[in-house]
């Protein structure tokens, strides 16, 4: 059917050829009036940020559907998005600012006016800023205004700022950024249209919720082979043509074995490697020297390679050279080898042979070999060519755009392990060896990515923040040398979460999961105020949740809370709200302006950059304010630079005003579309007072479609690079060189050997030497190394239910009917072995704590693995659910069993349960044993906590819902 747009536009998904009503005469009104107004805004039932059409009837939300034109979801909507009405009407919505009156953590509050709330906050924050700004720790969760919140923290002057990335997927982000200048996560996507082989590693749902589903649907329709590597066979893995039920934490072995096979069979794309990567760059081999393992550079700092045609060392990044990929050379007396030679030497080693890794990974050698063969077949035998000429960075014209149609995508199944950074690097290495990054059919960058690798800028705040002074730059950034670390002269962490310290040098997103425990311990120091925005840190984003709750209420000798003051901005009555001293109630997503900015995590497509807004489509019926507006208000009260004008008056009326008028760099603001006085500019241009109207008129988003010749090889495509520089994505239109060899890691190893100005304390040497390998390696996850795996024989995982978003789905009257109790899924054979039957209640015991839940037997799981749905278990009384709600009665939260610290090492030191390189929280390293509980223990989950009181002002949840009846009444009255 022509003229139809969107994802579901095949002839079998469209309207009837004749969609006029037949004369049935049964009195059915086949053409009821649906809505008075339709507003096109952006969904926020999750971070996928789909475009939605919100239908309003008599001022109430009648229906929410996907926006067909929207680049993210192209008309479809997910299970959560379509339940938006119930999120918007949740009885757990906060109604007014709250001040704690009872003990922390009970829910005993009194309602206060905004003026009082803001005065309390401003007074406290002003005091902190004037004395020691780092005593404010500002951490934000699943929000999408990090460019605002980060900037605010910078202006405030605290280095203690991060968003949720550290406990989320920093391994993926960092490994990608340091390797290819982009990443899976939200910064790239498979070329769904052209790929002929798709491999998915450790993904249950991901942020690109709808795009992945749309893509998988298309692949299935085209008959493209989909391989899912995942210990659990749910969702995407269930429809994969091949499911590889790997043992958790061993993907690195699988991937490196595939690389071994490909190298052995010479199935790697050498041309691609010399053009787009550092494969030919020479590395110094001089064990013991201060520059051993660093890349060879000339006096001007240029990377060098060996040219085979002239047998000389040449500028490795110059075009037209004929670099050697093998051999070893002596340059100015230094022995060097090309990086590729190191790669071949490393991975051709029999320790990476499929046979050597099969048992450990649970993937048979024959299967590994076959997958390698299939990958090679798709990449090399099924190579494709789009009839699109393009010009590379060196000005060479290519008559066609060639592609190797193998696409991969990976997420937290890789990320949430202590070896996740290296495993993710291994996957990127595999992609690059096959020549599949940003080529037709491969993995594609979404602008503003790719960016230079290794990435910049550096994190700010090394001096710990000075009174009444902004930081010199944004608190978060990228470290590539020990000098960049945020440590003091004694080598101690500057940040409360110890990000960018020796414990987590490349912690690009901070390490939010350490904040509460560190602040409570006063390690590295005590703080005054913890400001949390849109995160449930006392529950599902905490490890050791029970302990975290205690830390939040623990008092010192003088009877004062060890974490003196907690401010929380939330829209709902979460578990964490009960632990706040001051609650700043936020609006819901249909009630406010938001901006999904290219400065943050945009909604771009590989075919072009895009950003979007949210705008109020209904007015709040409560005394709540958008947090971003509140933050700007606080900033103005604190007289933060950039938030007040010359007269010292608030610079921005509210967040909407900021979105339009704020400029981060001259001409670069939160939104890229319709800039300039007349709205004709994109990317750079003067603020346009009409900008928001233009967005609204365009369906809530802006999108720029790249020219056909800019769409691929973005890392080396002259036209694209020039565009990116003009847009401000890149400082200069220079090619991005993929880093197969990650030199920054070697710098840390050298520091551990005592080289350089900044060296780690002796206790850190071993970790740095072992894990900071500049080429991808595999090592057993830390918990596995530390506990008796004979006792804790099982891996325990969580997965995201597609219809729930973290902890906040359960307040939704519709979503919670689908899942209000989670089970622990156990393999039938495993259950039989330990004597468990379906529906048994079991203790799930880790080295740290035990949790009780009910099991369900399945076949579709790795036999050494048990798993459950994430964040279904709830604290009694939270979210305004009834006291007997199954979420609290029978649902369980696996987090209780996950320790924030590893068991003590030989020196008795307890490291954070995190990746040693990035500080990524290792949720999925958990090892457990199962034990059937006694009969009298069956039927309810444990641990159980005291019930939270409903906060002042929140009405009881209704006993019955008949939403929609009002529309029918109105319809029938009007008839």
């Amino acid at each position, binding site marked *: 059917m022509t003229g139809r747009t969107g994802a579901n536009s095949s002839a079998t998904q469209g309207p009837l050829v004749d969609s006029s009503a037949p004369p049935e005469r049964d009195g059915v009104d086949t053409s009821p009036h649906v809505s008075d107004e339709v507003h096109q805004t952006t969904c926020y039932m999750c971070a996928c940020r789909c475009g939605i059409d919100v239908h309003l009837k008599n001022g109430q939300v009648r229906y929410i559907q996907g926006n067909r034109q929207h680049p993210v979801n192209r008309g479809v909507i997910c299970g959560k998005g379509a339940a938006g009405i119930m999120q918007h009407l949740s009885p757990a919505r906060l109604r007014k600012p709250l001040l704690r009156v009872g003990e922390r953590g009970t829910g005993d509050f009194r309602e206060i006016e905004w003026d009082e709330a803001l005065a309390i906050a401003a007074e406290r924050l002003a005091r902190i800023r004037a004395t020691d700004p780092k005593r404010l720790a500002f951490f934000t969760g699943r929000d999408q205004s990090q460019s605002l919140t980060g900037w605010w923290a910078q202006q405030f002057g605290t280095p203690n700022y991060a968003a949720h990335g550290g406990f989320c997927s920093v391994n993926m982000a960092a490994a990608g950024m340091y390797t290819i200048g982009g990443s899976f996560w939200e910064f790239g996507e498979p070329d769904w249209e052209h790929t002929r082989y798709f491999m998915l590693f450790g993904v249950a749902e991901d942020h690109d919720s709808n795009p992945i589903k749309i893509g998988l649907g298309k692949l299935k329709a085209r008959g493209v082979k989909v391989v899912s590597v995942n210990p659990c066979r749910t969702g995407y893995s269930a429809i994969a043509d091949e499911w590889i039920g790997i043992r958790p934490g061993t993907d690195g072995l699988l991937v490196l074995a595939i690389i071994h096979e490909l190298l052995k069979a010479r199935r790697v794309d050498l041309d691609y490697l010399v053009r787009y990567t550092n494969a030919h760059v020479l590395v110094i081999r001089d064990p013991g020297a201060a520059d051993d393992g660093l890349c060879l550079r000339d006096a001007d700092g240029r990377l060098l390679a060996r040219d085979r045609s002239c047998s000389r060392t040449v500028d490795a990044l110059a075009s037209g050279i004929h670099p050697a990929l093998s051999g070893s050379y002596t340059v100015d007396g230094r022995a060097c080898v090309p990086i590729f030679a190191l790669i071949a030497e490393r991975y051709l080693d029999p320790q990476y042979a499929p046979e050597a890794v099969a048992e450990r990974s649970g993937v048979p050698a024959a299967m590994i070999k076959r997958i390698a063969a299939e990958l090679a077949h798709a990449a090399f035998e099924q190579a494709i060519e789009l009839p699109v000429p393009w010009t590379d960075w060196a000005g060479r014209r290519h008559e066609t755009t060639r592609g190797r149609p193998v696409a991969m995508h990976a997420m937290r199944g890789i990320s949430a392990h202590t070896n996740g950074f290296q495993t993710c690097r291994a996957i990127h290495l595999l992609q690059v060896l096959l020549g599949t990054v940003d080529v037709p059919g491969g993995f594609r960058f979404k602008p503003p990515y790719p960016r230079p690798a290794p990435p910049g800028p550096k994190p700010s705040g090394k001096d710990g923040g000075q009174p009444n002074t902004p930081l010199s730059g944004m608190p978060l950034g990228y470290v590539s040398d020990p000098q960049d670390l945020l440590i003091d002269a004694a080598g101690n962490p500057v940040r409360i979460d110890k990000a960018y310290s020796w414990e987590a040098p490349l912690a690009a997103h901070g390490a939010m999961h350490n904040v509460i425990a560190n602040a409570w311990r006063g390690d590295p120091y005590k703080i005054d105020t913890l400001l949390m925005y849109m995160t449930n840190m006392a529950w599902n984003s905490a490890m050791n949740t029970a302990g975290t709750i205690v830390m939040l209420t623990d008092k010192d000798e003088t009877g004062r809370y060890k974490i003196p003051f907690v401010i929380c901005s939330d829209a709902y009555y979460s578990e964490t709200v009960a632990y706040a001293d001051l609650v700043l109630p936020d609006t819901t997503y249909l009630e406010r302006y938001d901006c999904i900015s290219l400065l943050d995590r945009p909604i771009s497509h590989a075919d072009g950059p895009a950003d979007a807004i949210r705008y109020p489509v209904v007015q709040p019926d409560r005394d709540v304010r958008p947090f971003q507006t509140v933050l700007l208000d606080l900033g103005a009260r604190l007289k933060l630079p950039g938030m007040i004008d010359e007269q010292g008056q608030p610079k921005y009326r509210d967040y909407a005003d900021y979105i339009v008028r704020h400029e981060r760099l001259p001409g670069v603001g939160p939104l890229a579309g319709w800039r300039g006085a007349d709205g004709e500019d994109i990317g750079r241009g003067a603020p346009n007072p009409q900008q928001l109207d233009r967005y609204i008129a365009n369906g809530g988003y802006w999108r720029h479609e790249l020219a056909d010749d800019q769409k691929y090889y973005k890392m080396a495509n002259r036209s694209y690079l020039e565009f990116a520089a003009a847009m401000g994505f890149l400082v200069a239109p220079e090619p991005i060189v993929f880093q197969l060899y990650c030199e920054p890691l070697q710098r840390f190893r050298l520091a551990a050997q005592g080289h350089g100005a900044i060296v780690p304390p002796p206790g850190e040497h071993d970790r740095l030497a072992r894990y900071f390998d500049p080429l991808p390696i595999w090592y057993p996850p830390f918990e596995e190394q530390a506990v008796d795996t004979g006792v804790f024989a099982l891996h325990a995982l969580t997965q995201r239910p597609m219809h729930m978003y973290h902890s906040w789905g359960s307040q939704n009257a519709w979503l919670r*009917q689908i*899942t*209000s*109790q989670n089970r622990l*899924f156990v393999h039938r054979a495993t259950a039989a072995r330990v004597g468990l039957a379906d529906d048994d209640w079991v203790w799930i015991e880790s080295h740290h704590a035990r949790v009780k839940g009910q099991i*369900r037997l399945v076949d579709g799981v790795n036999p050494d693995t048990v798993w459950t749905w994430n964040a279904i278990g709830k604290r009694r009384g939270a979210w305004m659910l009834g006291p007997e709600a*199954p979420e609290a009665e029978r649902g369980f939260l696996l987090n209780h069993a996950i320790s924030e610290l590893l068991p003590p090492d030989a020196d008795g030191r307890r490291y954070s349960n995190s990746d040693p390189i990035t500080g990524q929280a290792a949720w999925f390293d958990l090892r457990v044993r199962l034990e059937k509980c006694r009969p009298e223990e069956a039927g309810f989950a444990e641990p159980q906590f005291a019930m939270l009181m409903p906060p002042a002002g929140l009405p009881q949840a209704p006993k019955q819902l008949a939403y929609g009846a009002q529309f029918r009444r109105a319809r029938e009255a009007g008839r």
Partner: protein
Amino acid sequence: MHPALSVIAFTTATGAGYGLLVWLGLLAASGVLPASRSFALGGAGLALALITVGLLSSMLHLGRPERAWRAFSQWRSSWLSREGVASVVTYVPACLFAAGWILLERTDGAVAAAGIVAAACAAATVVTTGMIYASLKPVAQWNTPYTMPGYVIYALMSGAVLLNAILQASRTESRAVAWIAFVLIALGWFWKNMTWHHDATLSAPTTLNSATGLGGGEVRSIEWPHSEKNYLLKEMGYRIARKHALKLRMFVHVLAFGIPLAATEIAILSAGWTAGLASVIAALTLIPGLLIERWLFFAEAKHTVTLYYGGWAQ
């Protein structure tokens, strides 16, 4: 299937009422019964009362009882509608019969004719009731040749036992009625045993493979669409533990059949107050016995929808 008390009360009471009406109509016409007003009041009155209470109880089952009258419209296809029509139609001859008998104190002539018509209508109504269940393909335990005759047999049986008790209580012994009751109880017992025997060999009318279109190997439910019970499960997913069912079946054997049969036998063999007492005991145990029988009729019936929830096998 969910054993709704209203439906259990309805089918049991109307069954007994119509059964009694059948016997009153037939036996009155054949002159076996006393023509006295008090007997007429007791007999026909009880029959009509049981029918009426039963029908009213069935209304409790409806979501919209005020619209119950609409149920008369679809007699061409619906057994429930036919039952509704039949039950109302039955009132006409039944009332004429009762009125004639009570007012005229005669059981011949027009009264007898009305009695026979009432008996026929009553029997037909019980057939329609039985057919409501017997025609439901998704419920294997109901969709059998045993269901409809069962309804008829238990109705006639309970009618006969009641009639015998009334006769005995009003000191009008009728060995014939006692014998009828005796034979019907035996037949009912036999029929119930046959039915249960048949049910024991029943397999689900279809499989989860067929229900999901997934041909081949075993299909197992691993997650429901909703983690708590919904209408389908509450209405059609009712489960009764095997142990519990066996115990209740024992009660049925004893209360609905064993004791009534023995007591009726005693009534046949004895006379006077012994016979009277025995007959009343037969009636008084039969009613709870049949209520339990009817409860099990629902509770033990399994609906194909339970397959989707992994349920039928259990």
